[in-house]
């Protein structure tokens, strides 16, 4: 199992599917403490990403793409999200993918490169959003995911182990945003009333990282979890 540009494509296509499936759930979370558009925003963005990747796939079909840098795919994702999502999450996810693309110039990612990718993404979100852990934003999912990925890599885990650690940590961490009082983003306007609801951006981060792991597990031809990429 190698994490190459094809994996990156599978990752974002799976994210698009996951977002589509969870669109109403994300929107409902955002309706509780925001403005009820997060599902629609990400759906619009990842549909556009898929369309861009489809178009790019036609261009490169027949060419040997085995040494295509992973970052090339991530950069397409970044610019597409930036120009189609809007809202707060568009620039935030856009910056995450842009920074990730910059540290993913090689055609294959080893465990430490995966950690570097995630660290760069987190750094992008946190610096763009000027947010820290505990403010009830997507940073509250990204930070534990990065921490867990770093530990998994230090423990000698392979790429999949690293991604699994990140995904599982993000999923739990998204849930853990429920009691928090928001101090960044639109939910902060609610003050204390923001407590008791999961942060939509933290939930979508968990979906994104879950898709990264699933794409790795599935392999180029569908593979382990049975779903075609």
């Amino acid at each position, binding site marked *: 199992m190698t994490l190459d540009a094809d994996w990156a494509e599978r990752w974002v296509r799976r994210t698009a599917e996951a977002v589509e499936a969870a669109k109403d759930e994300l*929107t409902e979370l955002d*309706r509780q403490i*925001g*403005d*009820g*558009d997060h599902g*629609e*925003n990400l759906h*619009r963005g990842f549909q556009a990403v898929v369309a861009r990747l489809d178009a790019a796939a036609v261009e490169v079909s027949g060419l040997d793409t085995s040494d295509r840098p992973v970052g090339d795919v991530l950069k397409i994702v970044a610019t597409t999200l*930036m*120009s*189609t*999502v*809007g*809202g*707060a*999450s*568009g*620039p*935030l996810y856009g910056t995450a993918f842009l920074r990730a693309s910059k540290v993913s110039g090689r055609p294959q990612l080893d465990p430490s490169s995966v950690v570097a990718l995630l660290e760069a993404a987190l750094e992008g979100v946190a610096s*763009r*959003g000027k947010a820290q852990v505990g403010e009830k934003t997507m940073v509250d999912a990204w930070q534990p995911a990065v921490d867990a990925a770093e530990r998994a890599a230090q423990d000698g885990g392979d790429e999949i182990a690293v991604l699994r650690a990140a995904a599982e940590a993000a999923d739990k961490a998204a849930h853990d945003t429920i009691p928090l009082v928001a*101090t*960044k*983003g*639109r939910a*902060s*306007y*609610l*003050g204390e*009333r923001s407590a008791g609801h999961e942060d939509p951006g933290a939930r979508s981060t968990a979906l994104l990282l879950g898709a990264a792991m699933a794409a790795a597990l599935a392999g180029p031809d569908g593979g382990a979890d049975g779903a075609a990429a």
Partner: protein
Amino acid sequence: MKKLLNNPADAVADSLAGFALAHADLVDVHRDPVYVSRKDGAVNGKVGLVSGGGSGHEPLHAGFVGDGMLDAAVPGAVFTSPTPDQILPALQAADGGAGVLAIVKNYTGDVLNFETAVELAEAEDLQVESVLVNDDVAVEDSLYTAGRRGVAGTLAVEKIAGAAAARGADLAAVADVARKVVANVRSMGVALAACTVPHSGRPSFDLADDEIEIGIGIHGEPGRHRVPMASADEITQALLDPVADDLTLVPGDRVLLFVNGMGGSPLSELYVVYGRARRLLEGRGVTVSRSLVGSYVTSLEMQGASITVLRLDDELEALWDAPVHTAALRW
């Protein structure tokens, strides 16, 4: 959900198409990316003014494009900030060689997307200044929030900065007067009923028949407090007092009083609020020398209103009075 719409996904596009036809003498509406610019392009030598944000607040901002106000407006999806690839061409279209002022409401999304667009514009040697509008006193401006939101006070910033630009002020001066308006304008709103975002199909929050939300924004977000339904006089006081206190109005101050409808409340009710707000201000020894009553900064079909007070001096008053010719504001 019952709305005069076709496919909810086309809500913004269909509405802009109608707007373009109805006001072809004033604006050009561009698609792909979507932005609105004044007819005949930028005015040579004049500072350009650009604003934008999510749709659903009509007539803000596209309705304020024209002589004496904005040169371009950038509508995002409903309640969703526009993207940098929309904002950039709007900044470019507004540039008449004297630079551009971007008027940004203080929302994380608007701020981030405008920031990116401004960076891109500067990379292409466009001179851009940004002003952040944050007039909503319902939100505490502290380290522990994203800061106060920009709401109906935005209209005053756009009108007055637009007049300054029309008079030939340079970019720094236009930005200064815009910041002066921001420093002197405060707002607060109430919802009697929520609004429904077309693609969601569900009310943005659920309110019982005898409850209202005080301190709402303009995106269907719930407010700061949910309180029992009260009389117009009581509600007006609950909005006006925090506004006047935050502005630290003192006897002898002169103000613009702007009662804004949220989209679903009839004009007759806005005048009831206006009358009470005016008496409250006069009770504080404050003179209301300029007024505006109407639904200008809306939240789809939300029922409710907001009160905006702008402390005036001779400069701001004269700029407010200066001619304006847009789809929604004209004198």
